[in-house]
Protein backbone atom coordinates (compact mmCIF):
# COMPACT_ATOMS: atom_id res chain seq x y z
CA UNK A 1 0.00 0.00 0.00
CA UNK A 2 1.18 3.47 -0.76
CA UNK A 3 1.71 5.80 2.18
CA UNK A 4 -1.34 7.79 3.16
CA UNK A 5 -1.19 11.55 3.59
CA UNK A 6 -1.26 11.14 7.37
CA UNK A 7 1.55 8.59 7.32
CA UNK A 8 3.62 10.80 5.05
CA UNK A 9 3.29 13.67 7.54
CA UNK A 10 4.73 11.52 10.32
CA UNK A 11 7.70 10.05 8.50
CA UNK A 12 10.56 9.18 10.77
CA UNK A 13 13.30 11.77 10.99
CA UNK A 14 16.58 10.17 10.03
CA UNK A 15 19.83 11.13 11.70
CA UNK A 16 21.31 13.67 9.34
CA UNK A 17 25.00 13.37 8.56
CA UNK A 18 25.99 16.37 6.50
CA UNK A 19 27.74 15.86 3.19
CA UNK A 20 31.39 16.96 3.06
CA UNK A 21 31.41 19.26 0.04
CA UNK A 22 34.11 21.28 -1.68
CA UNK A 23 32.90 24.09 -3.90
CA UNK A 24 35.75 25.30 -6.07
CA UNK A 25 35.86 28.26 -8.46
CA UNK A 26 37.96 26.94 -11.32
CA UNK A 27 38.45 30.21 -13.20
CA UNK A 28 38.41 33.94 -12.59
CA UNK A 29 34.86 34.27 -13.90
CA UNK A 30 33.51 32.08 -11.11
CA UNK A 31 35.41 33.50 -8.16
CA UNK A 32 32.89 36.22 -7.37
CA UNK A 33 29.90 33.91 -7.24
CA UNK A 34 31.73 31.32 -5.12
CA UNK A 35 32.87 34.05 -2.72
CA UNK A 36 29.32 35.31 -2.38
CA UNK A 37 28.03 31.79 -1.82
CA UNK A 38 30.62 31.24 0.91
CA UNK A 39 29.14 34.11 2.89
CA UNK A 40 25.77 32.39 3.25
CA UNK A 41 24.96 30.03 6.05
CA UNK A 42 25.20 26.34 5.19
CA UNK A 43 24.05 23.44 7.33
CA UNK A 44 26.69 21.00 6.15
CA UNK A 45 30.46 21.20 6.30
CA UNK A 46 30.98 22.78 2.90
CA UNK A 47 34.23 24.56 2.12
CA UNK A 48 34.36 27.24 -0.56
CA UNK A 49 37.66 27.47 -2.40
CA UNK A 50 39.33 29.30 -5.28
CA UNK A 51 41.67 27.46 -7.62
CA UNK A 52 45.13 29.00 -7.58
CA UNK A 53 47.74 26.97 -9.45
CA UNK A 54 48.98 23.49 -10.18
CA UNK A 55 51.99 22.25 -8.31
CA UNK A 56 54.47 20.09 -10.15
CA UNK A 57 57.41 17.82 -9.52
CA UNK A 58 60.81 18.68 -10.91
CA UNK A 59 59.96 16.77 -14.11
CA UNK A 60 56.91 18.94 -14.69
CA UNK A 61 54.37 16.22 -13.77
CA UNK A 62 51.36 17.75 -12.05
CA UNK A 63 50.87 16.32 -8.61
CA UNK A 64 48.59 18.66 -6.75
CA UNK A 65 47.17 22.16 -6.77
CA UNK A 66 47.02 25.09 -4.45
CA UNK A 67 43.67 26.56 -3.52
CA UNK A 68 42.65 29.55 -1.47
CA UNK A 69 39.99 29.42 1.19
CA UNK A 70 37.23 31.94 0.43
CA UNK A 71 36.60 32.81 4.03
CA UNK A 72 40.13 33.57 5.29
CA UNK A 73 42.23 33.65 2.10
CA UNK A 74 44.58 30.99 3.46
CA UNK A 75 46.34 28.80 0.92
CA UNK A 76 45.64 25.10 1.08
CA UNK A 77 46.31 22.02 -1.02
CA UNK A 78 43.78 20.20 -3.18
CA UNK A 79 44.92 16.84 -1.83
CA UNK A 80 44.32 18.00 1.73
CA UNK A 81 40.89 19.39 0.88
CA UNK A 82 39.77 16.18 -0.82
CA UNK A 83 40.59 14.03 2.19
CA UNK A 84 37.21 12.90 3.45
CA UNK A 85 35.22 14.90 0.87
CA UNK A 86 32.01 13.41 -0.58
CA UNK A 87 31.54 15.73 -3.54
CA UNK A 88 33.48 18.40 -5.40
CA UNK A 89 31.46 21.06 -7.19
CA UNK A 90 33.52 22.84 -9.84
CA UNK A 91 32.16 26.25 -10.78
CA UNK A 92 33.32 27.87 -14.02
CA UNK A 93 32.65 31.10 -15.85
CA UNK A 94 34.20 30.81 -19.25
CA UNK A 95 37.21 28.51 -19.00
CA UNK A 96 38.58 26.42 -16.14
CA UNK A 97 40.15 23.63 -18.19
CA UNK A 98 43.41 23.25 -16.26
CA UNK A 99 41.73 23.25 -12.87
CA UNK A 100 38.92 20.91 -13.95
CA UNK A 101 41.41 18.36 -15.23
CA UNK A 102 43.46 18.37 -12.04
CA UNK A 103 40.48 18.33 -9.70
CA UNK A 104 38.57 15.83 -11.83
CA UNK A 105 41.46 13.35 -11.92
CA UNK A 106 42.12 13.74 -8.21
CA UNK A 107 38.44 13.06 -7.47
CA UNK A 108 38.36 10.04 -9.77
CA UNK A 109 41.39 8.58 -7.98
CA UNK A 110 39.63 9.03 -4.64
CA UNK A 111 36.13 7.95 -5.85
CA UNK A 112 34.68 11.36 -5.06
CA UNK A 113 31.56 12.54 -6.88
CA UNK A 114 32.07 15.52 -9.16
CA UNK A 115 29.62 18.13 -10.40
CA UNK A 116 30.25 21.07 -12.70
CA UNK A 117 28.34 24.33 -12.90
CA UNK A 118 28.99 26.74 -15.75
CA UNK A 119 27.56 30.15 -14.91
CA UNK A 120 27.57 32.96 -17.42
CA UNK A 121 25.11 35.68 -18.37
CA UNK A 122 22.86 34.84 -21.29
CA UNK A 123 24.67 35.39 -24.57
CA UNK A 124 28.13 34.87 -23.12
CA UNK A 125 30.09 32.09 -24.81
CA UNK A 126 30.31 29.09 -22.46
CA UNK A 127 31.39 26.35 -24.81
CA UNK A 128 35.05 26.41 -23.71
CA UNK A 129 34.04 25.93 -20.09
CA UNK A 130 31.56 23.18 -20.96
CA UNK A 131 34.15 21.32 -23.02
CA UNK A 132 36.69 21.74 -20.22
CA UNK A 133 34.43 20.40 -17.51
CA UNK A 134 32.58 17.69 -19.45
CA UNK A 135 35.16 14.89 -19.06
CA UNK A 136 35.47 15.44 -15.33
CA UNK A 137 31.99 16.36 -14.10
CA UNK A 138 29.55 13.49 -13.64
CA UNK A 139 26.83 16.12 -13.65
CA UNK A 140 27.19 19.36 -15.59
CA UNK A 141 24.77 22.27 -15.37
CA UNK A 142 24.87 25.29 -17.64
CA UNK A 143 22.93 28.28 -16.40
CA UNK A 144 22.74 32.02 -16.78
CA UNK A 145 21.39 32.62 -13.28
CA UNK A 146 23.84 33.03 -10.40
CA UNK A 147 21.26 32.02 -7.83
CA UNK A 148 20.97 28.62 -9.51
CA UNK A 149 24.22 27.73 -7.78
CA UNK A 150 22.79 28.64 -4.40
CA UNK A 151 19.60 26.68 -5.10
CA UNK A 152 21.60 23.68 -6.26
CA UNK A 153 23.80 23.66 -3.17
CA UNK A 154 20.73 24.09 -0.95
CA UNK A 155 18.96 21.18 -2.64
CA UNK A 156 22.04 19.02 -2.15
CA UNK A 157 22.32 20.04 1.53
CA UNK A 158 26.03 20.90 1.20
Amino acid sequence: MAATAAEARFRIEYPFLPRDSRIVAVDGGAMGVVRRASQLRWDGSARFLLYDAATAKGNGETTDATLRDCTDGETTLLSRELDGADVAVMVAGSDGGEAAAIIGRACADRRIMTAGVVLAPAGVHTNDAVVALRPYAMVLIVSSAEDDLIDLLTALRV
Partner: protein
Amino acid sequence: MLKPEINELLTETGPGTAMGELFRQYWMPALLADELPTNDCPPVRVKLLSERLLAFRDSNGRYGLIDEFCAHRGVSLWFGRNEEGGLRCAYHGWKYDTTGQCIDVPSEPEGSRFPQKVRLKSYPLVQVGDVLWTHMGDPKLRPELPVWEFARVPAEHTYTSKRWQECNWLQALEGGIDSSHVSWLHSGGLKDDPLFKGARGNTYNLTDRKPFFEVADADGGLFIGARRNAEEGHYYWRITPWVMPNFTMIPPRGDHPVHGHFWVPIDDENCWTYSFDYHPTRPLTDAELQAMREGYGVHNQYVPGTFRPLQNKDNDYLMDREAQRRGETYSGVWGIAMQDASLQESMGPIVDRSKERLVSTDSGIIQARIRLRKAAEALRDDGVIPPGVAPEHQRVRSASVVLPVERGFIEASREALSVTPGTKHASV
Protein backbone atom coordinates in the same frame (compact mmCIF):
# COMPACT_ATOMS: atom_id res chain seq x y z
CA MET B 1 15.75 19.19 -0.41
CA LEU B 2 13.02 21.79 -0.54
CA LYS B 3 11.80 23.99 2.25
CA PRO B 4 8.23 23.05 3.23
CA GLU B 5 6.83 26.37 1.98
CA ILE B 6 8.43 25.85 -1.46
CA ASN B 7 7.13 22.29 -1.57
CA GLU B 8 3.64 23.66 -0.92
CA LEU B 9 4.07 26.34 -3.56
CA LEU B 10 5.02 23.77 -6.20
CA THR B 11 2.47 21.11 -5.33
CA GLU B 12 -0.73 23.09 -4.68
CA THR B 13 -2.61 23.90 -7.88
CA GLY B 14 -6.11 24.87 -6.75
CA PRO B 15 -7.69 28.23 -7.62
CA GLY B 16 -5.78 31.15 -6.16
CA THR B 17 -2.51 29.30 -5.59
CA ALA B 18 0.67 30.44 -7.33
CA MET B 19 1.21 27.15 -9.13
CA GLY B 20 -2.49 26.89 -9.91
CA GLU B 21 -2.34 30.26 -11.62
CA LEU B 22 0.74 29.12 -13.52
CA PHE B 23 -1.10 26.05 -14.83
CA ARG B 24 -4.00 28.27 -15.85
CA GLN B 25 -1.76 30.04 -18.37
CA TYR B 26 -1.56 26.94 -20.57
CA TRP B 27 -3.80 24.79 -22.72
CA MET B 28 -4.00 21.52 -20.77
CA PRO B 29 -5.33 18.10 -21.72
CA ALA B 30 -8.80 17.84 -20.18
CA LEU B 31 -9.91 14.47 -21.55
CA LEU B 32 -9.42 12.16 -24.50
CA ALA B 33 -11.51 13.01 -27.55
CA ASP B 34 -13.03 9.54 -27.63
CA GLU B 35 -14.52 10.07 -24.17
CA LEU B 36 -17.11 12.25 -25.94
CA PRO B 37 -17.51 10.14 -29.09
CA THR B 38 -20.84 11.39 -30.47
CA ASN B 39 -23.22 14.33 -30.30
CA ASP B 40 -25.52 14.15 -27.25
CA CYS B 41 -23.38 11.39 -25.70
CA PRO B 42 -23.30 11.09 -21.90
CA PRO B 43 -21.43 13.91 -20.15
CA VAL B 44 -18.12 13.18 -18.42
CA ARG B 45 -17.04 14.38 -14.98
CA VAL B 46 -13.68 16.12 -15.19
CA LYS B 47 -11.77 17.33 -12.15
CA LEU B 48 -8.85 19.61 -13.02
CA LEU B 49 -6.73 21.82 -10.80
CA SER B 50 -9.13 20.97 -7.93
CA GLU B 51 -12.16 22.28 -9.86
CA ARG B 52 -15.10 19.91 -10.40
CA LEU B 53 -16.24 20.28 -14.00
CA LEU B 54 -18.42 18.51 -16.52
CA ALA B 55 -17.56 17.97 -20.19
CA PHE B 56 -20.23 17.38 -22.79
CA ARG B 57 -20.82 17.46 -26.54
CA ASP B 58 -24.12 18.93 -27.63
CA SER B 59 -26.49 18.07 -30.47
CA ASN B 60 -24.47 20.26 -32.85
CA GLY B 61 -21.08 18.76 -31.97
CA ARG B 62 -20.00 21.69 -29.81
CA TYR B 63 -17.84 20.81 -26.83
CA GLY B 64 -18.36 22.39 -23.43
CA LEU B 65 -16.56 22.25 -20.09
CA ILE B 66 -18.72 23.76 -17.37
CA ASP B 67 -19.13 23.77 -13.60
CA GLU B 68 -20.36 20.31 -12.58
CA PHE B 69 -23.10 21.68 -10.35
CA CYS B 70 -26.43 23.29 -11.23
CA ALA B 71 -26.79 26.94 -10.22
CA HIS B 72 -30.23 26.20 -8.76
CA ARG B 73 -29.69 23.81 -5.85
CA GLY B 74 -26.15 22.59 -6.51
CA VAL B 75 -26.88 19.08 -7.72
CA SER B 76 -24.48 17.40 -10.11
CA LEU B 77 -25.32 17.92 -13.74
CA TRP B 78 -23.70 14.57 -14.48
CA PHE B 79 -27.16 13.12 -13.83
CA GLY B 80 -28.58 15.45 -16.47
CA ARG B 81 -29.98 14.85 -19.92
CA ASN B 82 -27.79 15.87 -22.87
CA GLU B 83 -30.37 16.69 -25.52
CA GLU B 84 -31.58 19.31 -27.98
CA GLY B 85 -28.62 21.67 -27.80
CA GLY B 86 -27.88 21.61 -24.10
CA LEU B 87 -27.56 19.78 -20.82
CA ARG B 88 -30.71 19.69 -18.70
CA CYS B 89 -30.53 19.18 -14.94
CA ALA B 90 -32.33 16.04 -13.85
CA TYR B 91 -33.71 17.69 -10.71
CA HIS B 92 -35.86 20.62 -11.96
CA GLY B 93 -35.00 20.79 -15.64
CA TRP B 94 -32.73 23.83 -15.76
CA LYS B 95 -30.83 23.69 -19.03
CA TYR B 96 -27.33 24.95 -19.98
CA ASP B 97 -25.47 25.33 -23.25
CA THR B 98 -21.78 24.56 -23.82
CA THR B 99 -20.74 28.02 -22.61
CA GLY B 100 -22.46 27.46 -19.25
CA GLN B 101 -25.25 29.87 -20.16
CA CYS B 102 -28.61 28.85 -18.73
CA ILE B 103 -31.10 28.66 -21.61
CA ASP B 104 -34.20 27.32 -19.88
CA VAL B 105 -35.75 27.39 -16.39
CA PRO B 106 -39.02 25.47 -16.78
CA SER B 107 -40.57 26.86 -13.60
CA GLU B 108 -40.34 30.44 -14.94
CA PRO B 109 -43.02 31.93 -17.23
CA GLU B 110 -42.50 31.37 -20.92
CA GLY B 111 -40.36 34.20 -22.32
CA SER B 112 -38.87 35.04 -18.91
CA ARG B 113 -35.51 36.79 -19.04
CA PHE B 114 -34.41 35.08 -15.83
CA PRO B 115 -32.37 32.31 -17.56
CA GLN B 116 -30.18 34.94 -19.20
CA LYS B 117 -29.06 35.99 -15.72
CA VAL B 118 -27.80 32.53 -14.81
CA ARG B 119 -24.45 31.37 -16.12
CA LEU B 120 -22.14 28.67 -14.87
CA LYS B 121 -18.40 28.95 -14.94
CA SER B 122 -17.14 27.46 -18.18
CA TYR B 123 -13.90 26.91 -20.03
CA PRO B 124 -13.20 26.31 -23.70
CA LEU B 125 -12.84 22.70 -24.82
CA VAL B 126 -11.11 22.21 -28.15
CA GLN B 127 -10.01 19.07 -29.96
CA VAL B 128 -6.43 19.01 -31.21
CA GLY B 129 -5.28 15.51 -32.13
CA ASP B 130 -6.63 12.76 -29.85
CA VAL B 131 -7.08 15.17 -26.97
CA LEU B 132 -9.64 17.74 -25.84
CA TRP B 133 -7.75 20.71 -24.42
CA THR B 134 -8.87 23.44 -22.09
CA HIS B 135 -7.52 26.79 -20.95
CA MET B 136 -8.67 27.67 -17.43
CA GLY B 137 -7.07 31.10 -17.19
CA ASP B 138 -7.96 34.65 -18.13
CA PRO B 139 -9.60 34.61 -21.60
CA LYS B 140 -7.79 37.84 -22.43
CA LEU B 141 -4.48 35.97 -22.06
CA ARG B 142 -5.56 32.85 -23.93
CA PRO B 143 -2.62 31.60 -25.99
CA GLU B 144 -2.72 30.04 -29.42
CA LEU B 145 -3.94 26.45 -29.54
CA PRO B 146 -1.26 23.87 -28.70
CA VAL B 147 1.14 22.85 -31.46
CA TRP B 148 2.77 19.80 -29.83
CA GLU B 149 3.89 17.53 -32.64
CA PHE B 150 2.16 14.43 -31.25
CA ALA B 151 -1.17 16.27 -31.53
CA ARG B 152 -0.52 17.73 -34.98
CA VAL B 153 0.68 14.73 -37.00
CA PRO B 154 -1.93 12.80 -39.06
CA ALA B 155 -4.32 10.80 -36.89
CA GLU B 156 -2.92 7.44 -38.00
CA HIS B 157 0.57 8.46 -36.80
CA THR B 158 -0.37 9.00 -33.17
CA TYR B 159 -1.94 7.32 -30.16
CA THR B 160 -2.71 8.76 -26.73
CA SER B 161 -3.86 7.10 -23.51
CA LYS B 162 -4.42 8.40 -20.04
CA ARG B 163 -4.40 6.92 -16.56
CA TRP B 164 -5.28 8.05 -13.09
CA GLN B 165 -2.17 8.41 -10.95
CA GLU B 166 -2.75 8.58 -7.21
CA CYS B 167 -0.16 11.15 -6.21
CA ASN B 168 0.68 14.80 -6.69
CA TRP B 169 1.57 15.86 -10.20
CA LEU B 170 5.10 16.99 -9.31
CA GLN B 171 6.45 13.66 -8.12
CA ALA B 172 5.08 12.07 -11.31
CA LEU B 173 6.71 14.76 -13.46
CA GLU B 174 10.00 14.36 -11.62
CA GLY B 175 10.03 10.70 -12.63
CA GLY B 176 9.87 11.84 -16.25
CA ILE B 177 12.90 14.08 -15.84
CA ASP B 178 14.96 11.52 -13.95
CA SER B 179 16.87 9.61 -16.64
CA SER B 180 19.10 7.81 -14.15
CA HIS B 181 16.43 5.29 -13.10
CA VAL B 182 15.98 3.80 -16.57
CA SER B 183 18.96 1.44 -16.47
CA TRP B 184 17.63 0.02 -13.19
CA LEU B 185 13.88 0.13 -12.90
CA HIS B 186 13.16 -0.42 -16.59
CA SER B 187 16.04 -2.77 -17.40
CA GLY B 188 13.61 -5.63 -18.06
CA GLY B 189 11.55 -3.54 -20.46
CA LEU B 190 14.57 -2.60 -22.53
CA LYS B 191 14.96 -6.30 -23.32
CA ASP B 192 11.35 -7.39 -23.70
CA ASP B 193 8.88 -4.55 -24.31
CA PRO B 194 7.78 -4.57 -27.98
CA LEU B 195 7.82 -0.76 -28.05
CA PHE B 196 11.35 -0.51 -26.62
CA LYS B 197 13.34 -3.63 -27.48
CA GLY B 198 15.76 -4.14 -30.33
CA ALA B 199 17.31 -0.68 -30.48
CA ARG B 200 21.08 -0.35 -30.57
CA GLY B 201 20.83 2.33 -27.90
CA ASN B 202 19.48 -0.21 -25.41
CA THR B 203 22.88 -1.91 -25.37
CA TYR B 204 24.53 1.30 -24.23
CA ASN B 205 21.85 1.73 -21.57
CA LEU B 206 22.40 -1.73 -20.19
CA THR B 207 26.20 -1.77 -20.33
CA ASP B 208 26.86 1.68 -18.84
CA ARG B 209 24.77 2.11 -15.74
CA LYS B 210 26.55 5.21 -14.50
CA PRO B 211 25.59 7.90 -16.97
CA PHE B 212 26.95 11.42 -16.83
CA PHE B 213 24.34 14.18 -16.96
CA GLU B 214 24.20 17.63 -18.43
CA VAL B 215 21.39 20.09 -17.84
CA ALA B 216 21.01 23.07 -20.14
CA ASP B 217 18.50 25.90 -20.30
CA ALA B 218 15.95 25.79 -23.10
CA ASP B 219 13.53 28.54 -24.07
CA GLY B 220 10.58 26.52 -22.78
CA GLY B 221 12.29 24.73 -19.89
CA LEU B 222 15.29 22.44 -19.95
CA PHE B 223 17.15 19.92 -22.02
CA ILE B 224 18.54 17.08 -19.93
CA GLY B 225 21.26 15.03 -21.58
CA ALA B 226 22.27 11.63 -20.21
CA ARG B 227 25.61 10.51 -21.59
CA ARG B 228 26.83 6.91 -21.70
CA ASN B 229 29.88 5.33 -23.25
CA ALA B 230 29.43 4.10 -26.83
CA GLU B 231 32.08 2.94 -29.29
CA GLU B 232 35.64 4.18 -28.86
CA GLY B 233 35.74 7.97 -28.97
CA HIS B 234 31.95 8.35 -28.87
CA TYR B 235 29.18 8.94 -26.37
CA TYR B 236 25.57 7.81 -26.55
CA TRP B 237 23.34 10.72 -25.58
CA ARG B 238 19.72 10.50 -24.53
CA ILE B 239 18.20 13.97 -24.54
CA THR B 240 14.96 14.68 -22.70
CA PRO B 241 13.17 17.98 -23.21
CA TRP B 242 11.07 19.29 -20.36
CA VAL B 243 8.69 22.07 -21.32
CA MET B 244 7.06 23.98 -18.52
CA PRO B 245 5.19 23.09 -16.56
CA ASN B 246 4.36 19.43 -17.17
CA PHE B 247 5.45 18.10 -20.56
CA THR B 248 8.31 15.69 -21.18
CA MET B 249 9.36 13.50 -24.07
CA ILE B 250 11.32 10.30 -23.70
CA PRO B 251 14.32 9.92 -25.98
CA PRO B 252 13.43 7.47 -28.78
CA ARG B 253 14.81 4.02 -29.44
CA GLY B 254 15.52 2.76 -32.96
CA ASP B 255 12.57 3.20 -35.30
CA HIS B 256 10.05 2.78 -32.50
CA PRO B 257 7.50 5.56 -32.12
CA VAL B 258 8.62 8.36 -29.84
CA HIS B 259 6.71 8.85 -26.62
CA GLY B 260 6.10 11.30 -23.85
CA HIS B 261 3.78 12.53 -21.16
CA PHE B 262 1.69 15.31 -19.74
CA TRP B 263 1.05 15.23 -16.00
CA VAL B 264 -2.12 17.18 -15.30
CA PRO B 265 -3.18 17.87 -11.70
CA ILE B 266 -6.62 16.54 -10.82
CA ASP B 267 -6.22 17.90 -7.32
CA ASP B 268 -3.23 18.08 -5.00
CA GLU B 269 -3.17 14.33 -4.36
CA ASN B 270 -4.04 12.96 -7.80
CA CYS B 271 -3.09 13.60 -11.40
CA TRP B 272 -3.85 12.41 -14.91
CA THR B 273 -0.92 10.94 -16.74
CA TYR B 274 -1.41 11.42 -20.48
CA SER B 275 0.91 9.13 -22.42
CA PHE B 276 1.39 9.53 -26.15
CA ASP B 277 3.24 7.68 -28.87
CA TYR B 278 3.71 8.98 -32.38
CA HIS B 279 5.91 8.64 -35.39
CA PRO B 280 6.67 11.82 -37.33
CA THR B 281 6.96 10.17 -40.74
CA ARG B 282 4.83 7.05 -40.85
CA PRO B 283 1.55 5.63 -39.57
CA LEU B 284 1.74 3.46 -36.48
CA THR B 285 1.64 -0.20 -37.42
CA ASP B 286 -1.14 -2.53 -36.34
CA ALA B 287 1.33 -4.35 -34.11
CA GLU B 288 2.39 -1.10 -32.44
CA LEU B 289 -1.20 0.00 -31.87
CA GLN B 290 -2.08 -3.40 -30.45
CA ALA B 291 0.90 -3.23 -28.09
CA MET B 292 -0.13 0.24 -26.92
CA ARG B 293 -3.72 -0.87 -26.31
CA GLU B 294 -2.43 -3.89 -24.39
CA GLY B 295 -0.46 -1.65 -22.04
CA TYR B 296 3.08 -1.94 -23.33
CA GLY B 297 5.55 0.91 -23.57
CA VAL B 298 4.36 3.98 -21.69
CA HIS B 299 0.75 2.75 -21.64
CA ASN B 300 -1.00 0.43 -19.19
CA GLN B 301 -3.88 -1.94 -18.61
CA TYR B 302 -7.08 -0.77 -16.90
CA VAL B 303 -9.70 -1.77 -14.42
CA PRO B 304 -12.46 -2.30 -17.02
CA GLY B 305 -14.62 0.75 -17.62
CA THR B 306 -12.28 3.12 -15.80
CA PHE B 307 -8.99 4.95 -16.24
CA ARG B 308 -7.63 3.37 -13.09
CA PRO B 309 -4.69 1.09 -13.84
CA LEU B 310 -5.37 -2.61 -13.42
CA GLN B 311 -2.23 -2.67 -11.28
CA ASN B 312 -2.90 -0.21 -8.49
CA LYS B 313 -2.10 0.42 -4.85
CA ASP B 314 -5.03 -1.70 -3.66
CA ASN B 315 -3.51 -4.85 -5.15
CA ASP B 316 0.15 -3.93 -4.61
CA TYR B 317 0.45 -3.41 -8.36
CA LEU B 318 0.22 -7.21 -8.84
CA MET B 319 3.78 -7.48 -7.59
CA ASP B 320 5.43 -10.68 -8.89
CA ARG B 321 8.40 -11.60 -6.69
CA GLU B 322 9.25 -14.59 -8.87
CA ALA B 323 9.54 -12.41 -11.98
CA GLN B 324 11.70 -10.08 -9.95
CA ARG B 325 13.90 -12.95 -8.83
CA ARG B 326 14.20 -14.27 -12.39
CA GLY B 327 15.27 -10.80 -13.55
CA GLU B 328 12.31 -10.33 -15.90
CA THR B 329 11.37 -7.17 -14.06
CA TYR B 330 13.65 -5.23 -11.77
CA SER B 331 10.97 -4.23 -9.26
CA GLY B 332 8.56 -7.13 -9.75
CA VAL B 333 5.94 -4.82 -11.28
CA TRP B 334 4.97 -5.46 -14.90
CA GLY B 335 5.11 -2.70 -17.49
CA ILE B 336 7.16 0.45 -17.77
CA ALA B 337 4.30 2.82 -16.95
CA MET B 338 3.30 1.04 -13.76
CA GLN B 339 6.89 0.49 -12.69
CA ASP B 340 7.11 4.28 -12.54
CA ALA B 341 3.66 4.91 -11.10
CA SER B 342 3.97 2.27 -8.37
CA LEU B 343 7.11 3.85 -6.96
CA GLN B 344 5.87 7.42 -7.33
CA GLU B 345 2.61 6.58 -5.54
CA SER B 346 4.50 4.69 -2.84
CA MET B 347 6.04 8.01 -1.75
CA GLY B 348 2.62 9.12 -0.53
CA PRO B 349 0.11 11.59 -1.98
CA ILE B 350 2.48 14.58 -1.62
CA VAL B 351 6.04 13.66 -0.79
CA ASP B 352 7.71 15.76 1.90
CA ARG B 353 10.72 17.09 0.03
CA SER B 354 12.19 18.65 3.15
CA LYS B 355 13.25 15.11 4.14
CA GLU B 356 14.81 13.89 0.91
CA ARG B 357 18.53 13.41 0.30
CA LEU B 358 19.23 14.43 -3.27
CA VAL B 359 22.47 13.66 -5.05
CA SER B 360 24.17 15.34 -7.97
CA THR B 361 22.45 13.10 -10.51
CA ASP B 362 19.17 14.65 -9.42
CA SER B 363 20.27 17.93 -10.96
CA GLY B 364 17.61 17.85 -13.67
CA ILE B 365 14.93 17.62 -11.01
CA ILE B 366 16.57 20.38 -8.98
CA GLN B 367 16.77 22.69 -11.99
CA ALA B 368 13.16 22.01 -12.96
CA ARG B 369 11.96 22.89 -9.46
CA ILE B 370 13.99 26.11 -9.54
CA ARG B 371 12.44 27.12 -12.84
CA LEU B 372 8.92 26.26 -11.73
CA ARG B 373 9.31 28.30 -8.57
CA LYS B 374 10.78 31.28 -10.38
CA ALA B 375 8.08 31.20 -13.05
CA ALA B 376 5.26 30.92 -10.50
CA GLU B 377 6.69 33.80 -8.48
CA ALA B 378 7.29 35.98 -11.56
CA LEU B 379 3.71 35.42 -12.69
CA ARG B 380 2.30 36.10 -9.22
CA ASP B 381 4.45 39.14 -8.47
CA ASP B 382 4.95 40.74 -11.89
CA GLY B 383 2.50 39.10 -14.27
CA VAL B 384 5.25 37.56 -16.37
CA ILE B 385 3.91 34.99 -18.87
CA PRO B 386 5.83 31.78 -18.15
CA PRO B 387 7.96 29.73 -20.55
CA GLY B 388 6.11 27.01 -22.46
CA VAL B 389 3.10 29.13 -23.35
CA ALA B 390 4.53 30.34 -26.65
CA PRO B 391 3.98 27.91 -29.55
CA GLU B 392 7.65 27.97 -30.50
CA HIS B 393 8.50 26.50 -27.10
CA GLN B 394 6.28 23.52 -27.91
CA ARG B 395 8.03 22.60 -31.16
CA VAL B 396 10.55 20.33 -29.45
CA ARG B 397 11.62 16.74 -29.84
CA SER B 398 13.57 14.33 -27.75
CA ALA B 399 16.56 12.66 -29.39
CA SER B 400 19.02 9.82 -28.94
CA VAL B 401 22.31 10.25 -30.77
CA VAL B 402 25.87 8.96 -30.82
CA LEU B 403 28.35 11.82 -30.93
CA PRO B 404 32.14 12.15 -30.89
CA VAL B 405 33.32 12.82 -27.35
CA GLU B 406 34.30 16.39 -28.13
CA ARG B 407 30.81 17.40 -29.35
CA GLY B 408 28.32 18.97 -26.97
CA PHE B 409 24.81 17.54 -27.11
CA ILE B 410 23.04 20.85 -27.58
CA GLU B 411 25.09 22.29 -30.42
CA ALA B 412 25.38 18.92 -32.18
CA SER B 413 21.67 18.15 -31.88
CA ARG B 414 20.07 21.55 -32.30
CA GLU B 415 18.10 20.51 -35.40
CA ALA B 416 17.20 17.14 -33.94
CA LEU B 417 15.71 18.81 -30.87
CA SER B 418 13.24 20.93 -32.81
CA VAL B 419 10.31 19.88 -34.93
CA THR B 420 10.78 19.78 -38.68
CA PRO B 421 7.52 18.40 -40.06
CA GLY B 422 7.99 15.40 -42.31
CA THR B 423 11.44 14.51 -41.02
CA LYS B 424 12.22 11.49 -38.88
CA HIS B 425 13.27 11.88 -35.28
CA ALA B 426 16.94 11.38 -34.38
CA SER B 427 17.15 7.94 -32.80
CA VAL B 428 19.65 5.17 -32.15
